[in-house]
């Protein structure tokens, strides 16, 4: 069963070939067997999942089901779920049960999906390797010595290992696309404002965006159909109609104009990754697309700008975790300041503390203009780079990450970790959508193959086009259908 894509499973449910209970039990069993090895789940909600599966089966019997009814999913542990722990990968929220569902969770529940559990993640979504989680690192199912990518690494690993047909992630600087690339799955970061942020624990509000992670672009299209749309509870949610993203998947690509940003093929790019990406581009040419080189001149300012803006917002967003109302509180505080200091020192891990301190510094009096204001100006230039490029081409293509998944524990220096997101971060600063699709492997020995991701970018609200382009690629190639041996061995 787990070799099927979400779309195939949905069809099997629809035809009565499979029941949601069978499917759910199958995945719960796989999670149970492989969970400890991969560490991809923080919480497994077996009882609730089975209840939801039974309800889905009943709905199908009554004829009130839709396509996603009964399909199991996993949620990154950043999405608030009523009555079920939402830890955000942090000790700070190890005891936190939100009294509400995130808007996206509501929508997926309404569509009849089954929630298997909450997946592991970098603490408060800060990281590129999943090593900053309070619950320990997640392993990459392709190679258990490698990281799965961050911060939606738990979701990516779970999908890749066949522990769930699909999962939700969030992407602040590449946190859907980079782990999707590392784990050989398809991950879409929608346009900022396309999917409601209500109920997603904020890291950097102006950059965070939720999106689907699955085995194919078609799967992502089905999920985005259910996730997207305006939400009155999120002021940054855009009031704009949601197309049916599956309708245009098969549009022909002849005449498609692809731009290759020269800044995405420079120094630091692994030659094997470059080779795979260029070969993928050739596939598109064979499908009738034309390719040209373009430039995004402010690209090299993206990481510095991001590491001013994101920590600034994070330092403020995380202030509410003060030990007063919810979450971790230190024992026996001597006074209020002691309560704040120790609760936060104990509750937050190193990377979170580092970014809070960076953000507090860059926002402080005397530094604000030099850092924050400047970074916002750079952000506008980066956005304009993209808009200019999209005057000439329909989509941009490049690697999702400069290297394939690196070894667990390999990146001790935070700055070298930050450079992992060099091709993804500008997309968040500009608010445009991006998708990563599997496009090859580095290494050949079965348990040491590491996937390569092709990143495709479009202008604001071009999700339908990105999914179309990705789907056509997946109709021609089978990178996305390959599975790690781990997935076959387990269970």
């Amino acid at each position, binding site marked *: 069963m787990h070799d099927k894509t979400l779309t195939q499973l949905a069809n099997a449910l629809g035809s009565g070939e499979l029941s949601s209970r069978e499917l759910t039990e199958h995945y719960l069993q796989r999670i149970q067997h492989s969970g400890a090895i991969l560490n991809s789940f923080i919480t497994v909600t077996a009882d609730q999942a089975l209840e939801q599966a039974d309800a889905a089966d009943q709905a199908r019997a009554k004829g009130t089901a839709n396509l996603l009814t009964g399909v199991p999913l996993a949620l990154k542990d950043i999405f608030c779920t009523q009555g079920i722990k939402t830890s955000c990968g942090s000790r700070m929220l190890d005891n936190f049960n939100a009294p509400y569902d995130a808007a996206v969770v509501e929508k997926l529940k309404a569509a009849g999906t089954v929630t298997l559990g909450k997946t592991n993640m970098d603490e408060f979504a800060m990281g590129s390797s999943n090593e900053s989680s309070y619950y320990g690192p997640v392993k990459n199912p392709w190679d258990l010595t490698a990281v799965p990518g961050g911060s939606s690494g738990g979701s990516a690993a779970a999908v890749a290992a066949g522990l769930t047909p699909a999962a939700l992630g969030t992407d602040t600087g590449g946190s859907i696309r980079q782990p999707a690339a590392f784990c050989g799955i398809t991950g879409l970061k929608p346009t900022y404002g396309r999917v409601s942020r*209500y109920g997603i624990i904020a890291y950097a509000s102006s950059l965070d965006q939720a999106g689907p992670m699955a085995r194919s672009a078609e799967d992502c299209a089905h999920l985005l159909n259910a996730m997207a749309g305006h939400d*009155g509870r999120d002021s940054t949610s855009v009031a704009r109609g949601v197309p049916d993203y599956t309708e245009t998947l098969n549009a022909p690509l002849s005449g498609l104009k692809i731009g290759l940003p020269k800044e995405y093929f420079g120094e630091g790019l692994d030659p094997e990754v470059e080779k795979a990406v260029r070969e993928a581009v050739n596939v598109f040419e064979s499908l009738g697309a034309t390719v040209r080189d373009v430039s995004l001149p402010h690209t090299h300012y993206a990481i510095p700008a991001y590491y001013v803006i994101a920590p600034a917002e994070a330092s403020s967003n995380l202030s509410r975790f003060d030990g007063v109302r919810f979450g971790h509180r230190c024992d026996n505080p001597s006074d209020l300041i002691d309560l704040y200091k120790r609760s936060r020192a104990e509750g937050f891990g190193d990377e979170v503390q580092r970014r809070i301190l960076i953000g507090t510094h860059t926002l402080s009096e005397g530094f604000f203009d030099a850092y924050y204001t400047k970074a916002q100006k750079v952000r506008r230039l980066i956005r304009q780079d993209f808009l200019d490029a999209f005057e000439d081409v329909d989509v941009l293509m490049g690697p999702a990450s400069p290297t394939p998944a690196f070894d667990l524990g390999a990146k001790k220096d935070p700055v070298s970790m930050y450079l992992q997101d060099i091709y993804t971060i500008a997309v968040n600063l500009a608010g445009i959508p991006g998708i990563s699709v599997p496009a090859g492997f580095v290494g050949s020995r079965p348990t040491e193959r590491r996937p390569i991701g092709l990143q495709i970018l479009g202008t604001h609200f071009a999700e339908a086009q990105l999914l179309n382009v990705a789907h056509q690629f997946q109709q021609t190639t089978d990178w996305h259908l390959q599975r790690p041996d781990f997935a076959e061995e387990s269970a």
Partner: protein
Amino acid sequence: MQWETVIGLEVHVQLATHSKIFSGASTAFGAEPNSQACAVDLGMPGVLPVLNEQAVAMAVKFGLAVHADIAEVSVFDRKNYFYPDLPKGYQTSQMYHPIVGPGEVEIALDDDTTKRIRIHHAHLEEDAGKSLHEDFHGMTGIDLNRAGTPLLEIVSEPDMRNAKEAAAYLKAIHSIVTYLGISDGNMAEGSMRCDVNVSVRPKGQEAFGTRAEIKNVNSFRFVERAIAFEVERQIELIEDGGKVVQETRLFDPERDETRSMRTKEEANDYRYFPCPDLLPVVLDQAYLDHLRSQLPELPAEKRERFQQALGLSAYDASVLSASRDMAEYFEEVHRVCGDAKQAANWVQGELSGALNRENLSIANSPVTAAQLGELVQRVLDDTINGKAAKEVFQGLWHGEGASADAIIEEKGLKQVTDTGAIEAMIDQVIADSPAQVAQYCDAEPEKRGKMIGYFVGQVMKASRGTANPQQVNGLLKEKLDALL
């Protein structure tokens, strides 16, 4: 040395919205702690603010009322600091691009002149919660009912030169916001409070002295007293060779003094930055025009009209226009009775006196404006005389009748103007008072005027106060003089 005081006010006005500025929770006063705080007000992870359009409309109305520039684009910023009653760890406010720009307010001074006080800007922000230090056995309780209550902070220029001007400015703001219906202005419940910036400088000096900020003063009287204390403190300090330090102080009304709370060095760095969860507020001309069309006549315009069109004195006009309730009451009395001067006299005299004695607001007056108007009308059309009118008023006040006419009827207070009836009473009094009549006749002509008072009193008494005093006076004089 001659000293000059410089005062600027930051007035916090709680806006009378039904729900909070960024959530749907109720803003009603006095509920059980934490019963009016939803997930947004509690700063729960994942929740997001949604701006209350009503708060924006109210801020804009204020801006229009003080002839201010309304910002086409205003932006909410986060003011970051830690405090247990600040749930999110930041207060959402407007630091860099406030919704209301420079404007001005006119205040009335004691000498009947007016002075313009410039408004620097006014911005929208959310209130924090409340820490409860009692009843928790050495611990602190947090009530977040107030958290997220919309506030309009109105910042003046340092244009005031004494405590009276500051109080007059505060009253003017109070009057404007209550006229606009954008705040209940209830200072006791904290709907209006202000921070007072005070400095002194030698008269004639251009540069400002170092200022102290007195936090959270919540009555007109306290503003005057806090400033008076602070001015004296600063002058004494400088004259003794000391220096005023920039600091935040608290006014203690019990001891009538200000006390240091924290100095500039201890001040927070609030790390303001634009709130990424909220979009800029963009207002267009059509929206402003729409709100402008909803503005009521404001106190300054009303005062002007009361003087020009109704012929009231500057003093009467200013008292009667100070509050919307008072003005509306007066206008209704005037509409019913048709005489502005009489209406003004009754509202400011008999009615205000009674309200003050029982500590009632005009909105809670037991005598309605329509009732009082009818009463005044009955005086004007000679149905009752002034003395009876006071009795009718008391009757209305105590609910002894539904209308002035009902009470006049009930108590038989209708003025007797029938000449025959009055003549009969006069004849009786003259017949009953031979000694006084003899005195009258013997008196010097110029003293007789005074002596007639006795007879008038007797006749009025005989009529139980209902005889028309002018008639009584005239007829008596005729009859007595006929006896000479």
